[in-house]
């Protein structure tokens, strides 16, 4: 199947991925993503009826450790590289509400 990716699709995906693309980037990615997806069509067309998906190469199960507290990063260390901190917490711009 030939993949057709419209600029509107690209803009939608960019929104989902929290990326802000310039108009020329939208054009470029539309053609490049279509090219890669065309190449991927080779596997998209394979008959995989009844084949179980592999999410992980190892037969690993949930790995649990004893529920005993162990020391981690101190609050000071955890906050030390944040762009903005206030009262011992990460500070972010406004999440809810109207434009100021």
């Amino acid at each position: 199947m030939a993949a057709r990716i419209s600029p509107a699709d690209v803009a939608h995906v960019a929104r989902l991925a929290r990326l802000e693309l310039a108009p020329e980037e939208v054009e470029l990615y539309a053609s490049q993503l279509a090219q890669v997806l065309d190449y991927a069509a080779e596997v998209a067309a394979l008959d995989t009826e009844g084949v179980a998906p592999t999410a992980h190469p190892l037969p690993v199960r949930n790995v649990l450790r004893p529920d005993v507290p162990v020391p981690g990063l101190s609050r000071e260390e955890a906050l030390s590289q944040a762009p903005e901190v206030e009262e011992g917490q990460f500070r972010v711009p406004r999440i809810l509400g109207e434009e100021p």
Partner: protein
Amino acid sequence: MTLPTALDLAQAVRTGERSAVEVVEEHLARVEEAEPEVHAFNLVAGEEARAAAAQVDARVARGEDPGPLAGVPLALKDNLCTRGLPTTCSSRILAGWVPPYDATAVSRAVRSGAVVIGKTNLDEFAMGSSTENSAFGPTRNPLDPIRVPGGSSGGSAAAVAAGFAPLALGSDTGGSIRQPAALCGVVGLKPTYGVVSRYGLVAFASSLDQVGPLARTVGDAVALLEAIAGHDPADSTSLDRPAPALSGCLAQGVEGLRIGVIQELAGVEGIAPEVGARLHEAADALAGAGAKVDEVSVPATMWGLPAYYLLAPAEASSNLARYDGVRYGLRLARPDITSMYEATRSAGFGPEVKRRIMLGTFALSAGYYDAYYGQAQRVRTLIIESFAAAYERFDALLSPTAPTTAFPLGSRTADPLAMYLSDVCTVASSLAGHPALSVPFGTGEGGLPVGIQVMAPALGEPVMVRVGAALEDLAP
């Protein structure tokens, strides 16, 4: 340039024949001379290396054994966390970030006596095959500076090839240790998934990422792998088993081993004729050394690349969601949080990283999930089954590591798919979680090195390094 092996250097330091400080100074002098042209490093940690080497010497003076890698300079790919040393992943989005902890592979190598001399350049977040996707400019191949060193561990491969360090650590998601090792004429080893802890390796595609060694000899690579391998409670995907003992396998030869040459990767379109010729010479040489060599069809290897370029970007799009300008790294000021996320991520990520996030987000998005991501996961199962059938008849498999020798800078940057094809031989064993090793074997176009890839089933490192060591001895 004939340089001592890492193991020879360690031996000399442990016996007091040479001082670790002198060994480090010698390597730093080579860095100073050639680094301006090569640009293998994002950071050269000269002062820290001198201090660490002095501690190694002090331990020797006290009659202690600093470990099997005593005083050996070690270059670290800059996606491995180092406490107190900036770790950038060659991305603007991590500008200024200094990790508060060491990756397990790093702390184990240091505990074995290795001396960290710097952090090496990579394709941003390990996404690329040429080290040209670095926010800090490309690394050049020390053997021919108009050419790329491969990638994404191009800085680590170049550092070893240029004699900046006898040992380096890289990471391999779809070939990022093996392909640059091949293009720079050094040895690169991707362990079985889970043999080395991923704790402190900045995540790209978590079901594929593995840390592994680059070195000038198979013996040195094995020594570094033995130092870093083994279970780590901090990585729930690390295998709960002791590190494999491999040094003893190196001299065992290949007598009686069944080795299959993968037809699909020997004759694939785009494999340079000289690379194909070296593969057949390598197979003949192994047969001459007593191995039972035959051709084998592993049809699903041909689906590796398209499956990989759906699965790895999908995992990346999820992993890279953490770069949001809140807890560390870059933040662009905006009045509300969504526009802050978008502005920060758009300014912080380079074009290839954005392309992969877009591709992965698309493959996971409603309406396309099953056709792309789900299908690629089912094809991953077919690849594992295809390998399993081949390993019923063979102990190890052989292919080229890369389809061509090192290519000129800029020659593939405009065409992402052409760049992705650099990984055609390496991705299948990554998807299967199997170990694979690249060993230099002769030269191809332009007198540049060709790498031969030795693959083995999960935890088949012992047989893989036997074949690798034999190839190293047999190489022209």
